[in-house]
């Protein structure tokens, strides 16, 4: 089903929805000398900007940077927030990233009650990309920036026209005010955009998962990670990085994001650190995304959103790293992953 609106109708829709839901969407935020676009709860639809990919992913809504663990018993999250949130304008890269988080936190063997609660409380309205930024490489990884059916509703904006493609009829009630639209018009937009994304100057021919032993023991990691400072920027901006640590303060326990880029991440109580140097830590990050997660869950843990390189203080580009891995594996004689 397709529903259509112009910007005035969209505003009315969001105003009506905001009576029953909290609405979070990309907004422009002044951050000191930087102007950023971030997902935030909004007061009025006028704040929303769909102009470009937000600088941070919406990960924080599902895995807050600080989360208080009310009761230290598995399966018992704290005070339930009954009011649901509509998360508006999530692009393919971030929608695919949620699948990675789902793999881990909604694993058959262990369901994380906190994550599950956020996931159930948030209804996502996806957004089709009209153009990529220079650091985007989702297409290279097989992700379609134009359409994605993993959100129940997916939005296409063209000028003053907003087309909502409803993938899950269960949520069609959200758009009941809007008139139905023409499938043909939407197909045209999809086709147009697919053509504009067809040209891709970054191609990769990597076996997935990366063969663990060959890649792990490759000689290039020291050179590739030589400039890595060991800060947590790439992991904190990454839509799929989910590692956390625990902190206690006066009986209150909380979990906070942690990063495999930090030297202390793997430090044992004995003082021994199995990942002694930054190249070992950097290798871990790449291996986790391109070897271990695909091995365990059948899916890459990188969506090509490009935020790690947009925000890296030394502009370390994961694409160059992947290219080095590619040519090394090809040299090694077409090692195929097991």
């Amino acid at each position, binding site marked *: 089903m397709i529903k259509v609106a112009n910007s005035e109708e969209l505003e009315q829709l969001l105003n009506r929805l905001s009576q029953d839901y909290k609405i979070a969407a990309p907004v422009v935020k002044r951050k000191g000398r930087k102007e950023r676009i971030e997902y935030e709860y909004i007061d009025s639809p006028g704040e929303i900007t769909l102009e470009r990919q937000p600088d941070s992913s919406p990960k924080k809504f599902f895995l807050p940077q*600080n989360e208080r663990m009310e009761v230290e018993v598995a399966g018992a999250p704290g005070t339930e927030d009954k009011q649901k949130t509509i998360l508006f304008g999530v692009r393919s890269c971030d929608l695919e990233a949620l699948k990675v988080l789902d793999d881990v936190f909604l694993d058959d063997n262990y369901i994380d009650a906190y994550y599950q609660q956020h996931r159930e409380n948030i209804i996502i309205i996806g957004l089709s990309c009209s153009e990529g930024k220079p650091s985007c490489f989702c297409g290279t990884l097989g992700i379609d920036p134009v359409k994605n059916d993993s959100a129940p509703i997916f939005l296409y904006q063209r000028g003053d026209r907003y087309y909502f493609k409803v993938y899950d009829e269960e949520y069609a009630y959200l758009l009941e005010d809007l008139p139905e639209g023409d499938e043909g018009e939407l197909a045209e937009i999809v086709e147009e955009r697919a053509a504009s994304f067809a040209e891709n100057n970054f191609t990769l021919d990597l076996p997935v998962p990366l063969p663990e032993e060959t890649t792990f023991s490759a000689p290039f990691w020291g050179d590739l990670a*030589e*400039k890595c400072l060991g800060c947590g920027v790439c992991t904190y901006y990454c839509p799929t990085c989910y590692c956390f640590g625990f902190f206690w303060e006066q009986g209150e326990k909380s979990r906070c994001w942690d990063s495999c880029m930090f030297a202390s991440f793997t430090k044992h109580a004995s003082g021994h650190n199995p990942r002694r140097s930054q190249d070992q830590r950097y290798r871990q990050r790449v291996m986790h995304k391109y070897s271990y997660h695909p091995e365990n869950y059948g899916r890459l843990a990188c969506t090509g959103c490009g935020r790690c390189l947009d925000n890296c203080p030394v502009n370390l580009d994961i694409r160059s790293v992947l290219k080095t891995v590619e040519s090394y594996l090809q040299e090694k004689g077409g090692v195929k992953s097991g």
Partner: protein
Amino acid sequence: MENNYKKLTEEIRGFAFELLKDGKVDRVIGYGKEEYSGEVTPLFITAPDESNRLIFNSECSMLLAKYLLNYRESRVAIVAKPCDTRAIASYLAENLLKRENLVIIGINGCPGITGNTACIECTVRNPVIFDFTAGEAIDKAELSPRVANELEEMTAAERLAYFQEEFSRCIRCYACREACYVCYCEECFTDSNQPFWVGGSVKLKDNFTFHLMRSMHMAGRCINCGACEMACPEGIDVRALPAKLTRVARELYNYEAGMDPEQKTLLTDYDVNDPQPGFLD
């Protein structure tokens, strides 16, 4: 004399080529470009032929001096902006590096780095220590460093509000710490759990604790290079507090860190006549 980047780049490449060709150094640390993004990035080269990958322009913001700590035992040449040379001088003063292992290619008459607000406060502009220089030196008499006074003019309550707003955005990625030449501790207080100094949350009080404690460690050591601010992905005014301490050290003790490798560090050089404002008064 105006320096142009093309000329600086050519001169740097020439020095790097000769040094590597003659086997005087094992490695040159400089700036290059990332292949796909075209962004400026630290570049480490070991062969003379790679010299033509080196560049210098106004985007070369990273403080390369910190990488020297990874190569203490090998012979390294480094492309050093004036602030990098101050960091190197500090390292030498603290006996962290061996001068004989280092070849410093200093940038003369540094034009400043795009977006780095520290550059307008720069009092140096020419390298304080070097083996070679690229570009023309600037006459110090021509310099007119400007100190941002906005914060000084605020009331205490306004300043508190300002820093609350700034630090509320901190995501504790520690990019400022990792970019800073002073932050070379084997274990940062943020990573210590015995004693436990600061929680890992991004609550305002933990963020304040981190920035205040980090700043206090900068007293008499910060060279006001702006690397912390340039590294911060959230655009936080990370430099304000350490820069204030730098000014206090200058005003009270006429001390500036990293001006001379023979210099004693501020906190190890006590004189009975040193002013002690705030101490037992």
